[in-house]
């Protein structure tokens, strides 16, 4: 068991292993998202209140969930890198940040487009989730800015890991304080806590989309980590040998 982890932490081993995993994640992702898009847009019944506008949920909810997930991955792998000095974990954190920011942005844009027919406005400060998501996006920006400001990779890894860990504590506080704040200002949200019971015809495509987005994220993350590993190890012998070998790849 431990041997597996130690091997996993070695960059050349990980580089080869990840290449095996990428298609195994990408194929289910395409299949699930394909089914989810078709079933969500054409088969799912119309919402009795929101009409067809609710269908953006099939992009919005998976992106919002991944925006948090990516931050957690970033912070946890940053913590692993700090505590056990595992270089690979830092590479994972570095690769996860732009992906997480992209999903956060997607969640914000789809939320705003959804808000237009529902609330009659592109942006509703009264909705706590939209505001928390915006702060999360700023946290991602700060993280990436700190990373790019430090030239030394090892130093950038550790400093940004500290920031990500501080940010995790803060994400929880942001969530509760924004909720308190919006309850003061009468947020006019149509969506209820927990959400109304969903028709299975609506629910299954959503679950498929959530799962599909997770697989998509996993395969994108692995691809990015591979690139990151290759870049960080560019001066080592295994990279040089691999590039010079006739098979390439």
């Amino acid at each position, binding site marked *: 068991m431990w041997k597996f982890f130690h091997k996993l932490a070695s960059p050349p081993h990980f580089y080869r292993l990840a290449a095996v995993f990428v298609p195994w994640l990408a194929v289910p992702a395409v299949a699930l998202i394909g089914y989810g898009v078709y079933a969500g847009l054409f088969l799912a019944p119309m919402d009795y209140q929101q009409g067809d506008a609710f269908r953006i949920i099939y992009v919005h909810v998976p992106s919002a969930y991944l925006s948090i997930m990516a931050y957690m991955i970033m912070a946890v792998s940053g913590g692993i890198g700090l505590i056990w000095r595992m270089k690979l974990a830092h590479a994972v954190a570095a690769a996860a940040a732009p992906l997480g920011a992209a999903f956060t942005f997607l969640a914000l844009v789809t939320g705003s487009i959804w808000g237009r027919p529902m609330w009659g406005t592109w942006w509703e400060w009264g909705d706590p989730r939209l505001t928390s998501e915006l702060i999360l996006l700023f946290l991602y920006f700060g993280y990436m800015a700190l990373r790019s400001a430090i030239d030394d990779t090892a*130093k950038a890894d550790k400093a940004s890991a500290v920031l990500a860990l501080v940010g995790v504590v803060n994400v929880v506080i*942001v969530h509760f304080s924004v909720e308190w704040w919006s309850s003061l200002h009468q947020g006019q949200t149509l969506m209820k806590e927990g959400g109304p019971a969903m028709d299975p015809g609506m629910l299954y495509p959503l679950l498929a989309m959530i799962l599909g987005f997770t697989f998509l994220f996993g395969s994108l993350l692995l691809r990015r980590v591979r690139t990151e590993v290759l870049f960080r190890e560019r001066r080592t012998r295994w990279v040089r040998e691999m590039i010079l070998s006739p098979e390439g790849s």
Partner: protein
Amino acid sequence: MSEPAPQIPGIFSGLWATARRDLLLAWKRPGDVLNPLFFFAMVCTLFPLAIGPSAEQLEFIGPGVLWVAALLSTLLSLNSLFLGDFEDGSLDQLLVSPQPLPVLALGKTLAHWLTSGLPLVLVSPILAVTYRMPASVVPVMMLTLLLGTISLSLLGSIGAALTVGLHRGTALLSLLILPLAMPVLLLGANTVSLAAGNDIYTTGVWALGAYAIASLSLAPYATAAALRISNE
């Protein structure tokens, strides 16, 4: 290891020595303390000029403006928290000292709060009056600012430690700290607004107090870790 270990002063003397040194430095260069205060006053002046002198409007936006100005002026002074020590090498002395680094970092943060947060709290009533804040609300505002600036100084010390020695540190520091500071701003400004509207505001005060205590107990460790990383 045959020699007996030298007698090391207790952690409180370490804390006090660091704080005292920074306070003394601030006393010798009063500009560093006064500039953020002037900045605070000027930002508060900008809003009436931009929005217009309507009394109702000013009364309405007052708590928010004062809080945003306090946050910005704290940010302004944070950049120099570790910078001077980094440049003249005394930061290295702190790092190699046998005292626990979190305590020394706390000492520096304490001095920062005493020279930036506390003066802000004391000056704020003057500005609040220009925003027509009722006299009954002023103590609430001072209390929220008192608790809030403690949290801001502590949060800011993490950011200052992470960015010490980096070029273009100031803009980066704001980018790092502002998202972290948003809950403090939100709690502080809205608590004052609630008090101004004769509403129940105790929830906000308790939450700010909890935030201050939590950051007091956690932030020094993050600051110490960040200082070690920045000075490798």
